[in-house]
């Protein structure tokens, strides 16, 4: 039903203020203008938050806080790191002392399961399994972190150099990039574990071997990732803008391109920690791990336990579960980070 709105409308203004601000309603021009601005601000208020302006990392963190995947991963990783750091304080007994050696007879399949004083029972030499697991966490963390640092350090150096020269180096830069990438392709042609076997065979079995071997195997992955990210950043307009403004090339590479390319590399580091722990276990199984029983390591423990798998499966189950859960923790965290940083999935 169409009405005559003009007249109705003209009667509106005096009516409306009754609800809100009577005084302003009859106030002179300036006051009414203020009232309008206020009203508009009030209506538009509440939508300012969650808007633009927040940094990529902060948005990512916000997203991760709401992701059950990220929380699970973070909790697992946090527990693991705390246990590893404070291992000597947590472990109730000496992990290498064969205190209860007289109670265990592997050749007769007599083993001691969980009990009040030994929470996880005894191992095949009568040592406290719980203490060994706790100390083992420390060794495992060490392997993971060092291996990742090796892979990250060398890989980022190679990939960063290749990426920077490809983006900014002109013709010579492309050649440098090409040469570096050939080397990386070569390394990639060697499967991770076999590369590790090679390194381990070269320097002999030890924990250091495992750390270097696993780390070296990750180099090509990091290198390719960083180079790829830098290449994609290098073609963005902001790089062009920086070059047009005459910013020095080294500065563009370090200040503009590199920080924006680090996202995938950081995600990969988290995932690599998981891979390193699993690969270290495989190397231990191949007899290339730490031969020193004084430093129990989950991979070595799992490899040793295979002999008793049918008679005492718990020897394998504890370290295996520990490895799986820890690796899962890092993987969940890394995947959640990847999702949170992925611009396609944002919003």
């Amino acid at each position, binding site marked *: *039903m*169409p*009405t*005559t*709105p*003009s007249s*109705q*409308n*003209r009667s*509106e*203004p005096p*009516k*409306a*203020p009754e609800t809100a601000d009577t005084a302003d309603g009859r106030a002179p*021009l300036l006051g*009414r*203008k203020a*009232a*309008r601005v206020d*009203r*508009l601000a009030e*209506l*538009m208020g509440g939508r300012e938050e*969650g*808007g633009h302006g927040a940094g990529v990392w902060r948005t990512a963190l916000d997203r991760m806080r*709401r992701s059950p995947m990220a929380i699970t991963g973070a909790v697992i990783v946090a527990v693991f790191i705390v246990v590893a750091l404070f291992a000597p304080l947590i472990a109730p007994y000496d992990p290498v002392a064969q205190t209860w050696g007289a109670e265990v007879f592997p050749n007769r399949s007599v083993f001691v399961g969980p009990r009040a004083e030994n929470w996880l029972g005894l191992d095949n030499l009568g040592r406290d399994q719980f203490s060994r697991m706790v100390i083992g966490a420390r060794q495992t963390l060490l392997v993971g972190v060092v291996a990742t640092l090796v892979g990250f350090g060398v890989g980022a150096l190679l990939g960063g150099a290749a990426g920077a020269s490809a983006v900014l180096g002109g013709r010579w830069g492309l050649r440098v990039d090409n040469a570096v990438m050939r080397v990386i392709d070569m390394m990639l042609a060697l499967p991770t574990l076999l590369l590790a076997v090679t390194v381990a065979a070269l320097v002999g079995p030890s924990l250091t071997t495992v750390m270097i071997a696993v780390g070296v195997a990750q180099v090509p992955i990091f290198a390719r990732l960083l180079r790829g990210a830098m290449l994609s950043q290098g073609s963005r307009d902001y790089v062009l803008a920086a070059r047009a403004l005459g910013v020095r090339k080294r500065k563009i590479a370090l200040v503009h391109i590199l920080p924006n390319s680090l996202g995938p590399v950081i995600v990969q580091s988290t995932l690599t920690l998981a891979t390193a722990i699993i690969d270290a276990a495989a190397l231990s199984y191949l007899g290339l791990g730490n031969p020193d029983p004084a430093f129990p390591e989950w991979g070595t423990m799992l490899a040793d336990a295979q002999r008793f798998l049918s008679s005492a499966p718990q020897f394998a189950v504890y370290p295996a579960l520990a490895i799986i859960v820890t690796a899962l923790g890092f993987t969940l965290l890394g995947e959640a980070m990847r999702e949170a940083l992925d611009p396609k999935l944002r919003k």
Partner: protein
Amino acid sequence: MSSSTPLLAVDELSVVFDGHGSDEVRAVDGVSFTLEEGRVTGLVGESGCGKSVTSLALMGLLPDRGVRVGGSAVMRLPEDRVDLLTLPQRRMRDLRGSQLAMIFQDPLSSLNPVVPIGRQVTEILRRHRGLRGSVADREAADLLDRVGIPDPKRRLREYPHQLSGGMRQRALIAMAVACRPRVMIADEPTTALDVTIQAQILELLRDLVTEEGTALLMITHDLGVVAGLCDDINVLYAGRAVETAPRTPLFSDPTHPYTVGLLSSIPRLDAPRGEPLTPIRGSVNDNIAWSQGCAFAPRCDHYTMECLQGPPELVAVGTAAGVEGGGSGGASAGASGAGAEHVHRCVNPVRHADVADQPVTESPAVAGGDEEEAQG
């Protein structure tokens, strides 16, 4: 209701997206318009005003989950009349491509990169017209020829990346017209193309409408396209139609400040040198909910206290819209049936020379003199 019912009558269409944990989003909020054979109807507005969502809702291409569609879109088919919004997916699949066709914005991403053009044309012929083998190939070549692709036989074997932008859009149009649809929706079909090609594509669309009697729904933000092609125009803002009119009155006599703003932001060849363009300030994100007032108010140079009191109604031009919440007994959408009437959704329409009421005198104080320009 007139004796000849419209080909497609969209009534109070609304699309609501469920927010992920946050508030739901009303992308389209009660939009109504009609399509007639041989006429071009335009949906105009900035990005994010709900144009594309409207077209996807009509095509039944919105995702199954997280979306609620309301209202009705009744289409007249040879045998009966159906509501596109409530039709089961299976029936919709039969209608899509044969009765309803759509041309998309970005021709490269809208074509499957790993399937030859020919296959992408023949698959629709096979699906709806049952053509196979060489018959289908010949028909596909004819179609490409008809939309102006030279050497169609060779093009059939090529992949999308081997075609130029204009060719790709022509190929997409060929697919859309393959089964002589009665309704065609073009969602910004020329945005990704350069100006010369734009003109050719628009001409092609115009020819198709006149020759085949297809009803074309043209979705665009480009008022130049609208001026050249559309018979009736709906201007959308924040999910609602703010002004609806035939082409001539809309361009000669725009009433909603948003339409006025859109028009004055077009560069003109006859404007004096050095005269700056007048953009609409702010962005489409600077709006308020329709339930609280006119969504355009934050960007409007003419808004008054009334604009912020409740949702304005869509009324015939010559009257100013009442506000629902204000108890003024707001006018309901006066325009029933054809889109030929000039209606707007504004409490303070720009053309109000006859009235000299308080809000108007007040406007310059806020807007700083943009008033004259708008009236001119």
